[in-house]
């Protein structure tokens, strides 16, 4: 019955069906499989009474991994809901409940599923009940969204009060110094978080285990950096963003775990093999493009749509980037290493000019990009606010840009024909 109901919902809410992306790597398939298996594992552990922690992606998940806690990421689940073509259904539920349409949809999307209370139709059976939720202050609505999660399940919430750079470093990817008082404050927050988690879950964190996880995560990101450096150097490119997405994004949710380290190594080896054999993603490559923002998760295949006809290949995804900053070495204790990671993370995810502008220019040159497409997701102020500044910087350097309006998860506002036409028109101007 549930399959029929799901299909009814999908058929009733939209005629448009998103396109799947076309990854080339075996790793990409494995990453997707792992995520689904992990979700099942979390469900089983929750069913057996283990406490599950809901985390926003910019929170120190390494602490949870070191404590052996099962974790769930509403943001990842939001992407899954969109990929299952159910975002119109759930977003309508949110809007009916008073969730204003122009509020963040990507990070807040899981609310629709939580409020619907219908596990029989929810993707993968719906989210596991949390024992607690953890969020860091960032864009306006996110803490409120997590508060709503906490209220819905009547569980406690921990808020990491994250500080902002007072002077954004212009080349943050070169490991600028973080103000000591900010580091101290962040570490203090983590100590509070650990105490909170230990109280809620009854589990204990040891420094040894945390150090091991942080070291593993450093190695994990080290592999990705080496792999992506190889990718940047290949012309035609050896993989496209269709392979970045599952590998970089999926492992980003498992920082420092055994699986993530092993997967990162596997990813590196597979890239190395492809480069060694001269394997390319698109024989016909004529134009190398960057995509800014997350892919439209209801149609990630959009990013492969211009290869066959135009040889236009999306080589770089400006989403999970700043990998260099994820590697935190030369710290005396793992908590300070983590604190510095997340404060650095804040520098690129904030997309503030001039730092974001110089970063995108740096990556455009590194990946030899001819142009950039900006997905202007009007509900995501954090990602979109600085897009015009970044575009101007790129244009001044002779790199073409264009923007299309859409949303990362909301298929209701996506005109696929128009979006393809717009990008195709722009590509045609680059080719003539």
């Amino acid at each position, binding site marked *: 019955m549930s399959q029929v109901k799901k299909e009814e919902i999908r058929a009733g809410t939209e005629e448009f069906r998103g396109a799947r992306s076309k990854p080339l790597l075996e790793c990409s398939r494995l990453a997707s499989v792992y995520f689904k298996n992990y979700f099942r594992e979390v469900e089983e552990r929750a069913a057996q009474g283990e406490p599950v922690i809901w985390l926003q992606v910019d929170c120190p998940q390494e602490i949870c991994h070191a404590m052996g806690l099962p974790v769930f990421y509403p943001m990842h689940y939001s992407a899954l809901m969109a990929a299952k073509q159910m975002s119109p259904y759930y977003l309508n539920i949110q809007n009916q409940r008073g969730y204003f349409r122009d509020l963040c949809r990507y990070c807040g999307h899981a609310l629709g599923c939580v409020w619907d209370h219908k596990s029989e139709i929810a993707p993968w059976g719906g989210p596991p009940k949390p024992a607690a939720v953890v969020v860091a202050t960032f864009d306006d609505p996110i803490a409120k969204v997590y508060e709503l999660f906490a209220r819905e399940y009547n569980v406690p919430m921990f808020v990491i009060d994250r500080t902002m750079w007072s002077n954004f470093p212009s080349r943050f990817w070169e490991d600028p110094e973080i103000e000591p008082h900010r580091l101290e404050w962040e570490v203090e927050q983590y100590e509070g978080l650990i105490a909170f988690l230990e109280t809620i879950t009854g589990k204990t964190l040891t420094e040894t285990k945390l150090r091991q996880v942080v070291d593993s995560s450093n190695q994990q990101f080290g592999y990705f950096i080496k792999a992506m450096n190889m990718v940047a150097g290949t012309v035609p490119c050896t993989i496209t963003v269709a392979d970045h997405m599952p590998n970089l994004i999926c492992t980003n949710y498992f920082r420092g775990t055994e699986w993530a380290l092993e997967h990162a190594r596997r990813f590196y080896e597979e890239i190395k093999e492809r480069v060694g054999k001269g394997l390319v993603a698109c024989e016909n490559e004529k134009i190398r493009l960057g995509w800014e923002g997350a892919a439209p998760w209801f149609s990630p295949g959009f990013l492969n749509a211009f290869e066959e006809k135009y040889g236009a290949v999306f080589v770089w995804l400006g989403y999970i980037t700043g990998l260099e900053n994820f590697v935190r070495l030369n710290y005396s204790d793992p908590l300070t290493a983590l604190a510095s990671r997340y404060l650095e993370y804040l520098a690129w995810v904030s997309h503030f000019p001039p730092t974001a502008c110089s970063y995108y220019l740096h990556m455009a040159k590194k990946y030899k990009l001819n142009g950039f497409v900006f997905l202007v997701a009007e509900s995501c102020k954090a990602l979109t606010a600085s897009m015009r500044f970044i575009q101007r910087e790129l244009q001044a350097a002779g790199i073409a840009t264009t923007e299309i*309006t859409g949303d990362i998860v909301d298929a209701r*506002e996506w*005109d696929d*024909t*128009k979006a393809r*036409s*717009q990008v*195709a*028109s*722009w590509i*045609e*101007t680059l080719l*003539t």
Partner: protein
Amino acid sequence: MYVVGIDMGSVAAKVMIMGDNDEVLSYVVADAKPDAEALAKRLMNEALEQAHLRSEDISYIVSTGYGRVNVPFAAENRTEIMCHALGVYHLFPSVRTVIDIGGQDSKCIRMDDKGRVQNFVMNDKCAAGTGRFTEVMGRALDISFDRWGEVVSSAPRRARISNVCTVFAESEVISKMTEKVPLNEILAGVCEAIVTRVIQMIQRMGAVEKDVAFTGGVANNKGVAQILAEKLGVDLFIPKIPQSTGALGACYLAKRFVARAAGIR
């Protein structure tokens, strides 16, 4: 050599056949239909009949427009940006900016002295500033499209239409009618609202470069054309059949493909 350009727009489909000397032998238009492929075939047959040609006489077909992929018998398809630019370039070689306002979308194209597109902008998902907006307003005011020019010219002032949304603007227009604001002033205000919206879009591309062409179905609307020319401070180049530039450009593109193939041989 005979070539065909097919513009499958969101509101209207157009087919043009062009001869050896760039003469237009036939041009047919019909409202867009759900079965775009069948429509394209029917219009193709009508165009052939009008030109006294058979399908075997055609050397190359290029399709463009929103529904360009729904023309399976086209040898190639290209986006409307490129085709509109090319069409206008052949009509008015001095033009560097094309403002195209169609039934459901509006766009502005900047091109160089060889008709190559340098930059373009399109409207977002909103219908304000498109032909749809003019239809709604024309109905509300009960003034037919072909009379807008004379009515707008007669207005001593323009009512201010502050809403950017088509639906809310219609309500605003009705309110003004209730307040006995003269219809010509309301209509002039409507035209100004359309032009303002279009100019905001154009400004995303930077300053307007002369000469400027105005194409698309709304270019037939003399009221909008008047105010657009006034606000831009230019004389607009308007084709005799403003909706035809997409199909025209597709014809010229078809000729290029034929020439390229011949050059290879």
